[in-house]
């Protein structure tokens, strides 16, 4: 695939931006802000309000931290931040707990016994970093720099990424691609020539008809989306929810479609069939921007609602009625692309089906559909050029997954570590991602770790993956450090600053410091021409005519507004092969895949087994926040949702603890049962991130069950190497 498209798109976005003009004036809310310099030495009396941005998830909401007589008190949304609109989500509001957490890592630690036994000696930063640098040098000499892989999550990884690029590796990855939104991005890129991106370019606020497929907004707290969801519901938008579970979002819906798990493509094809056969699609739009519509229309002819009914269990009348609702409200109908999209292994084609449905409705680029985001476009730091790696990344040898481009496959690097193909991977450096829960099949992760000469984990808390490390480096929380500037594509271009509200309580260090110090020890100091992070930030800001000192007072700087809809003057552009919206994909055809998506029936659960589904809680992010004392207080363990009829049949009581056993014989930790009418009889559900096994986290140790532990099977997406994880079946074990 022409992977240039995304890069090219970004370049063009950047080029169209003239010199920055700061339009945000000092907000009254932050008038009391004291700079860190003023604060140095003595405790500042009274309340300081320090603008920063949240790190409890990847949404990066602008926030104001309150420090009361030198002590961190609370955190609120920054009123001038367009993501939070002054209101953080529950995780963000509870973010101060990350700093208070008494189980966080306090000093660097070096392993003193067998890997995985979780036994450590305290070390100084010099000792720890010397050890790491020496091993990294050896790996470079013996195997080449590409034999070191960097796994990271979030913007905090930026400075370390820089160190690793300078070291010479291109094996830099994040599970957020192949274990999360990757299939969605590829499905949309194949259709519109562009990705959905993060934050999602969904115009929920202005939509008249919102269709959610498995996306449980409200339980899933992507702040802006939930705010806009409430606005849309409040304004009377038609909500259509497709989910095997009656989610919170379903309770707001006019139509709830209790779909059989794994059959979404059948429903999507049949909706498109109705729109086309009844002539309800946006004909002008399709004619103007579409490519291959004729072939597409011919192919979907057979997918009648009657055909779909036998696959999905959704009544033909309901399929027709909901399709008509969508057609009636077009182009302000938004079929939401979701985010965590790695479900059944056919995910890129499902995402492409979602994209095609939106294309029929003419919602891409239109108000109430998908807006066209733009960035502030702050120039990067003028670093020296990186050494050019001699070998291709190791994640996708032979381009087995032809559309896995733009980002690397984390599971692919794990595979290379196990097999040594296409070349050995001997070091893992893991930043802020708990690979034990983020990657499917924990045994494979453990197997890969056995082949490593070096495993380093940087985190705030002793996560499960940290338990396997050779060296653990304790990071300062986001409330105690600077990070890189956030410059997300959004409805308005803006940048946000993360700055420390307080000092780290122990010997924790910010990631920029770790990255720079490690580079020094690797003899790569020339890649860090700046003395400290303030100088780095100020240099970037100065190149746009701004200054760190001013930025520290507001935390947010915005660009003047620009049009974001086609109808307001955005020039439609599609970076596909045909330069149009591809109803029929030439590239897919070229690589031997279905140019128009087709439905394949999912595997059925064996008798007595239920499909394991997992999702999110509004108070937790992945497996990252469970140790936060405030958020732990809100939810300290998960429950397994079991349909009331099934519970009756198996004699399972509400509130009872059971264990789950999957079809590979893996048995979970004990978990409380929630007997409910709110789920189908063929599946069970739990919130992801619990049942953690790090013994040093007393608050989370074996609390609830881990879906990740039960995800021993995963189904590879043949297009892009995503790992479909909703393909495991479990049964009940009464003995706990």
């Amino acid at each position, binding site marked *: 695939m022409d992977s240039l498209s995304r890069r090219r798109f970004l370049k063009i976005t950047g080029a169209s931006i003239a010199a920055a003009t700061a339009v945000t004036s000092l907000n009254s809310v932050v008038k009391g802000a004291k700079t860190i310099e003023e604060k140095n030495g003595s405790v500042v009396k009274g309340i300081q309000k320090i603008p920063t941005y949240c790190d409890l998830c990847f949404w990066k909401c602008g926030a104001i931290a309150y420090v009361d007589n030198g002590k961190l008190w609370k955190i609120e949304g920054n009123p001038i931040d367009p993501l939070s609109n002054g209101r953080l989500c529950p995780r963000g509001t509870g973010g101060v707990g990350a700093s208070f957490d008494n189980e966080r890592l306090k000093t660097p630690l070096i392993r003193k016994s067998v890997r995985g036994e979780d036994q450590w000696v305290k070390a100084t930063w010099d000792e720890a970093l010397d050890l790491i640098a020496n091993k990294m040098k050896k790996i470079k000499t013996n195997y080449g720099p590409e034999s070191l892989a960097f796994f990271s999550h979030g913007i905090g990884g930026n400075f370390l990424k820089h160190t690793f690029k300078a070291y010479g590796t291109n094996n830099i990855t994040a599970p957020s691609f192949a274990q999360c939104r990757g299939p969605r991005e590829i499905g949309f890129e194949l259709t519109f020539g562009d990705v959905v991106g993060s934050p999602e370019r969904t115009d929920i606020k202005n939509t008249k008809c919102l269709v959610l497929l498995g996306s449980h907004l409200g339980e899933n707290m992507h702040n802006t989306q939930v705010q806009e969801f409430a606005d849309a519901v409040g304004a009377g938008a038609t909500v259509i929810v497709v989910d095997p579970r009656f989610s919170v979002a379903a309770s707001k819906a006019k139509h709830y479609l209790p779909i059989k798990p794994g059959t979404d493509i059948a429903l999507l094809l049949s909706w498109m069939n109705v729109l086309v056969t009844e002539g309800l699609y946006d004909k002008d739009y399709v004619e103007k921007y579409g490519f291959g519509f004729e072939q597409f229309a011919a192919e979907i002819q057979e997918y009648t609602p009657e055909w779909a009914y036998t696959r999905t269990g959704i009544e033909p009348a309901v399929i027709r009625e909901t399709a008509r609702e969508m057609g009636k409200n077009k182009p302000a109908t938004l079929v939401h692309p979701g985010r965590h999209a790695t479900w059944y292994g056919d995910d890129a084609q499902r995402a492409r089906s979602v994209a095609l449905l939106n294309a029929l409705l003419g919602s891409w680029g239109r108000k109430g559909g998908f807006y066209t985001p733009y960035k502030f476009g702050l120039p990067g730091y003028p670093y020296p050029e990186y050494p050019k790696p001699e070998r291709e990344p190791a994640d996708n040898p032979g381009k087995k997954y032809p559309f896995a481009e733009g980002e690397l496959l984390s599971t692919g690097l794990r595979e290379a570590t196990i097999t040594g193909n296409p070349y050995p991977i001997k070091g893992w450096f893991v930043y802020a991602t708990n690979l034990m829960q983020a990657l499917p099949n924990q045994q494979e992760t453990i197997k890969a770790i056995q082949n490593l000469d070096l495993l380093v984990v940087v985190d705030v808390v002793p996560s499960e993956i940290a338990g396997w490390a050779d060296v653990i480096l304790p990071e300062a929380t986001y409330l105690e450090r600077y990070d890189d500037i956030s410059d997300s594509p959004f409805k308005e271009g803006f940048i946000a600053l993360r700055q420390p509200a307080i000092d780290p309580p122990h010997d924790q260090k910010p990631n920029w410091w770790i990255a720079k110090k490690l580079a020094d020890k690797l003899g790569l100091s020339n890649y860090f021409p700046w003395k400290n992070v303030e100088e780095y930030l100020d240099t970037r800001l100065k190149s746009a005519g701004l200054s760190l000192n001013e930025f520290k007072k507001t935390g947010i700087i915005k660009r003047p507004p620009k049009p974001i809809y086609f109808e307001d003057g955005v020039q439609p552009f599609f970076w596909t092969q045909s330069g149009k919206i591809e109803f029929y994909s030439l590239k897919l055809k070229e690589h031997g895949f279905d140019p128009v998506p087709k439905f394949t029936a999912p595997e059925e659960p064996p008798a007595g087994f239920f499909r394991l589904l997992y999702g999110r809680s509004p108070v937790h992010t992945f497996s990252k926040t469970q140790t936060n004392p405030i958020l732990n207080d809100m939810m300290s363990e998960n429950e397994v949702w079991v349909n009331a009829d099934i519970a009756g049949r198996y004699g399972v009581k509400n509130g009872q603890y059971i264990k789950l056993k999957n079809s590979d014989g893996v048995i979970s930790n004990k978990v409380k049962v929630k007997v409910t009418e709110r789920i189908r*009889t063929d599946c069970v559900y739990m919130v992801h991130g619990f049942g953690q096994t790090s013994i040093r986290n007393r608050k989370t140790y074996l609390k609830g069950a881990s879906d990740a532990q039960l995800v021993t099977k995963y189904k590879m997406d043949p297009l892009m190497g995503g790992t479909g994880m909703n393909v495991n079946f479990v049964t009940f074990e009464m003995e706990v």
Partner: protein
Amino acid sequence: MSRFGMAIDTVRCVGCMDCVVACKTENKVPEGFNRDWITEEAFGNFPNIQLEIRTERCNHCEEAPCVDCCPTGASHYHDTGGVVLVNHNECIGCKACVASCPYDARFIHPDGYADKCTFCIHRVEKGEDPACVSVCPTHCMTFGDLDDPNSKISKLVKSRKWHVLKPEAGTKPHIYYLT
């Protein structure tokens, strides 16, 4: 006179607990306790289900049993807005109020006094909303003066359908759940 209350739009609320978290940080509520909470009530059989999600707290009742039963007068109606408060110094921690509250809104703080929602009177007196209201990402809560016919809350209560919790308890609660 003023009569403070809340109108909570159950159509908008997603039960995310941001209100609970915000109350905890704002009021430094100790670990293991909370002054507000989320209730979910589901009716029907799959897939025909109705779900009401509510954020609940002290109803700041006009006929508050917790004030009536307090032996020391620590539980009282505040001058502004009729907010039900506890004077920590006068409270002997006898738990009579905890038992009397039909909404289970009170608990004994580890420091020995009865504690509960104050409608964030310290913020309200500065012209701010209670913490839970100010933080809600769905804007489902409206705080205000029910005695002022022009207040947003009065208008909501007039124009929307609502219910209160346990009307049969005769406490005249002042939290209205819009449906």
